[in-house]
């Protein structure tokens, strides 16, 4: 009996690891060799000749890839380009041709330049939607022949993964995450916005937030102290430790790196070094839960004594009151004057409370326009 239990456990463990392995993409990918390979193209559900699922929202496979370059008989594929302006229609057709790798779709475009660009993009497009799978050689009937075996779920999932990737033009190097963060480090305005926590004990770690931080070589200036900061992966945050030798007091902070200095006399960034930091305010409730743009909200919470101001996504008010009339906020008019916000629309915003201890975390409230 014990032997049986042990064998069952081993089999169960094997199954779990096989399942995880498959989920992580460790298994061999398509092609699935079930016979003579034939190209199968993933198409739109309306163009299916071979359905993979009874669920019409899922992609399907159909045998439209042919060696000849004759005009494809898939007008429905271009139906999504209907009703657009001429330029948008051309761009839409180009996208469809690129996605399906069907250059002949480009023939529909009337402008010679746009047609040429479409052909080039369709030719150069990454062959993301084509896999080699084997199906019986004759699939001319648009209905599903009984003899066609379903692709196994793994092959189908591989195709679904490819479809669900964002449709990004990977040929443009500016459209990658790496390029975004490079621009953030090299092109964005070099600024230091905030050191958190605002009240910090000597020896504690702080986070500096800003823009234009270099990956290495950033120095945090802290009064007369200079603190070499750790590397910034995203060009916006980095961490460092306040030395225990720093005496208590209020300091102005700024950063320097190979791009220069972040010092901005109009918006000085300050931080307080103290051995007894005060607790931050914390909003626990905003009433009413939904307010009109002409209404007033009341903010309540913990550690709220000595309010210096209330800061919301719609603007800010200085003073010690926990009541805020939305009409007094600077950016409410951007919303009330907009012709694109329908009457009755409810949008969500955030509010924060500032005391001499620092600023609370944001708390949401809703406004009905």
């Amino acid at each position, binding site marked *: 009996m014990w032997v049986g239990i042990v064998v069952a456990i081993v089999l169960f463990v094997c199954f779990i690891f096989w399942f995880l392995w498959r989920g992580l993409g460790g298994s061999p990918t398509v092609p699935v060799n079930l016979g003579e390979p034939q190209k199968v193209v993933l198409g739109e559900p309306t163009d299916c000749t071979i359905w993979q699922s009874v669920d019409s929202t899922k992609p399907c496979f159909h045998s439209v890839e042919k060696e000849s370059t004759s005009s494809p008989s898939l007008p429905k594929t271009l139906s999504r380009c209907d009703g657009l302006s001429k330029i948008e229609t051309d761009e839409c057709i180009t996208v469809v041709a690129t996605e399906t790798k069907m250059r002949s779709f480009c023939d529909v475009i009337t402008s010679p330049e746009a047609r040429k660009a479409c052909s080039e993009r369709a030719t150069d497009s990454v062959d993301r939607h084509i896999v080699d799978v084997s199906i019986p050689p004759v699939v001319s009937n648009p209905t599903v022949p009984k003899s066609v075996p379903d692709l196994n779920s793994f092959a189908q999932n591989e195709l679904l993964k490819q479809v669900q990737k*964002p449709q990004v033009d990977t040929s443009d190097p500016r459209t990658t995450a790496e390029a975004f963060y490079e621009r953030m480090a090299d092109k964005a305005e070099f600024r230091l916005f905030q050191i958190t926590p605002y009240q910090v004990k000597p020896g504690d770690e702080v986070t500096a937030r800003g823009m234009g931080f270099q990956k290495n070589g950033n120095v945090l200036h802290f009064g007369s102290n200079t603190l070499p900061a750790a590397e910034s992966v995203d060009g916006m945050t980095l961490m460092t430790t306040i030395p225990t030798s720093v005496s208590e007091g209020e300091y102005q902070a700024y950063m320097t790196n190979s791009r220069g200095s972040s010092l901005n006399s109009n918006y000085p960034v300050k931080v307080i070094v103290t051995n007894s930091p005060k607790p931050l305010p914390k909003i626990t409730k905003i009433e009413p839960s939904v307010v009109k743009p002409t209404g007033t909200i009341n903010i309540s919470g913990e550690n709220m004594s000595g309010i210096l*101001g209330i800061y919301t996504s719609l603007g800010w008010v200085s003073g010690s009151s926990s009541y805020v009339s939305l009409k007094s906020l600077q950016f409410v008019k951007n919303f009330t004057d907009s012709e694109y*916000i329908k009457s009755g629309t409810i949008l969500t915003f955030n509010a924060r409370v500032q005391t001499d201890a620092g600023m609370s975390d944001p708390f949401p409230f809703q406004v009905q326009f």
Partner: protein
Amino acid sequence: MKQLLWKGSIIITAMVLFMTPPFHGYALIPPLLPFGGWTVITPIPCTCTASVLWTYMEPLYLSNVPMTGPMTYIPEVTVPFEYFTLTAPGAPHKGAYVAGVPTCWMYAGYFCYPLEAVGTMAFAGVGLPGGK
């Protein structure tokens, strides 16, 4: 015989454990995610970085479920595509964004605080105001 089975089971278990493929690691850099939607307000300039604009999108599509929310545009960082009028009120936008990165900061006397947004546009194409 019983001892042999025990040893065999242990060896098989050990083999399975050691044959486990390494788990995939991911870089710290968050990926770009697709978005689309309509801006509905005149954008708000962020006081700590005057060039950065904060706008509200309604509806905002991050999936096939419509929602609403703010997005940030940084002229030096966001790549505009045709028709290049990013944050124009009423214009449809389609592109990619980086989620959860506060880039619009407002000044509050002692430091700047972030105006929360769904994300920062990495690149986007813009239609005509009121267009589809």
